[in-house]
């Protein structure tokens, strides 16, 4: 789905990514993990054309991102950012309708198909009943679902999520991750996300990519590539790891 080839990027003189090459599987949930400053979010920004690589390239379904317009990209990949703002009096439905912008323009009105997609995106994220609610009245979990709904309205095969659970309490975190799981299973959506919580990453991913100092340390199914050594290398701390019923837990407390 996404091919990253020899990607290098630096903020001013500070190198963030060094010669990163990786392939993201179609139809899978892939999670980028690693310590703060290892380049996860930067990689995501490069893949969504929010930053330009110094060298190397990224290909999305064979097409080089550099030769792809922002609009083209927005029709193929949607992203939910960590930090989201919206005016308090904007209704959820209006926000979700922005997800149709890649197919129309801010100055043109929507067609019947756009409205269909908007209603669909609202119902999938269980937001239909909240459609007329102003954003300012929503809880944190509902807010994040509204932005996810906007991304789904873009009708893409690929969804990027940058630390989608960071500002949520544990119940909303779990609900959101389950929702993402469901979208992946039922709609065949390819999901690429950054997660801080290592256990959530292990539990909800088909593949994890561990980044360390701007290079790929490991990539593969979590139960295969994550062990005590990997955790020490990635996060710089010794933690006990338990395996039960073919599942993996990192003892973070």
């Amino acid at each position, binding site marked *: 789905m996404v091919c990253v080839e020899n990607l290098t990027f630096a903020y001013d003189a500070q190198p963030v990514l060094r010669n990163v090459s990786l392939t993201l599987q179609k139809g899978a949930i892939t999670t980028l993990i690693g310590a703060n400053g290892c380049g996860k979010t930067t990689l995501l920004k490069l893949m969504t054309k929010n930053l330009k690589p110094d060298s190397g390239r990224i290909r999305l379904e064979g097409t080089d991102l550099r030769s792809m317009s922002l609009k083209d990209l927005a029709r193929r990949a949607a992203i939910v950012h960590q930090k989201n703002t919206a005016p*308090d009096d*904007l209704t959820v439905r209006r926000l979700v309708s922005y997800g149709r912008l890649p197919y129309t323009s*801010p100055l043109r009105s929507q067609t019947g198909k756009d409205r269909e997609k908007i209603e669909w995106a609202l119902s999938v994220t269980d937001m239909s009943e909240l459609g007329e609610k102003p954003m300012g009245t929503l809880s944190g979990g509902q807010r994040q679902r509204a932005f996810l709904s906007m991304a789904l309205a873009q009708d893409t095969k690929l969804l990027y999520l940058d630390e989608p659970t960071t500002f949520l309490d544990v119940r909303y975190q779990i609900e959101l991750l389950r929702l993402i799981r469901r979208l992946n299973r039922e709609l065949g959506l390819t999901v690429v996300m950054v997660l801080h919580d290592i256990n959530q990453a292990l539990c909800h991913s088909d593949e994890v990519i561990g980044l360390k100092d701007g290079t790929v340390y490991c990539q593969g199914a979590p139960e295969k590539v994550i062990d005590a050594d990997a955790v020490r290398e990635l996060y710089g701390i010794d933690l006990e790891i338990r395996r039960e019923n073919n599942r993996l837990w990192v003892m973070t407390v």
Partner: protein
Amino acid sequence: MKTTHKELTRGVMSCFVLAALICLLTFAAMKLGSISVTYGELFRGLFVEYDIRVATIYDLRFPRIIVALLGGAALSCSGLLFQAVLKNPLADPGIIGISGGASLVTGIVSALFPTLYFSLPLFAFFGGVGAFAIIYSLSWKGGLDPVRIILVGIAVGAVFTGLGEVLDAVSNRTGVSMSVSGLTQLVWGDVSVLAVYTAVGLVLSLVLAPVCNLMALEDETVRGLGLNIDLLRLIVSLAAVLLVSGVTAVVGVVGFLALIVPHMARRVVGSEHRILVPFCILLGGFILLLADTVGRLIAAPYEISAAVVMSVVGGPFFIILLRKGGKHLGLR
């Protein structure tokens, strides 16, 4: 869709009410002043037979009323656009130095080439764009920090104002001056100059209203929707600079209006720019004309300039707004 529809209807109604108020105020402003006439005399003097008093009103008071309406509309609208593109509720072309840049270039050009009177707004536009470019590039550090924009803007604006005063002192002329911001001594020529630039700017703003809505989201979110946010921001900013430039070249610097009117408008009609832009345009015209008319009458035969009225009344009013609705304004 229902609520959205209802809100649109409410917004359109608010605009109509405001338009009606503007008509009333305009009629009052035509009649009131140092030369007092009845509406009957005014009508006869304009359309039936020559009347020296009505002719004076036509030559002096009418241009002033129209310039107040146009100038108020343009300034308020530009304030709204700046607040949108800079994601900053405190953005005001006066505070961030755009008016200062426009005014300085206007001053230089009118001192050196007095014959270029009708293209003054064009030069003011270049001055405004220059100021905006300086402020924007100095404030950019991988992103726009709202506080940094204000601080840089104040500094840049102070430099422009200082240079303008130097220019005033050196050229020792009357006419367009940085420090005088008033609506006195306006003629019909001023109206036509201002009308052209303002019309272009206002039409642009109305067209760009949906884009302003998107500016309220994070830049990265908008980019993720396939839009070139940097280009859109540039276009909206240029429209805002154009609006300020026309007013600055003709009227001078009027403070507070561009800051306060968008806030008032938002409290009435919300943050949907398709309603907010037209409402802001109407409200701006109304308030500047009100300020000017009150200033003309309150201490007659002396006149208090509209800018002074705006500052004296607008300052406390703005503080009340801030205290009542900090969250609403996006302040924390």
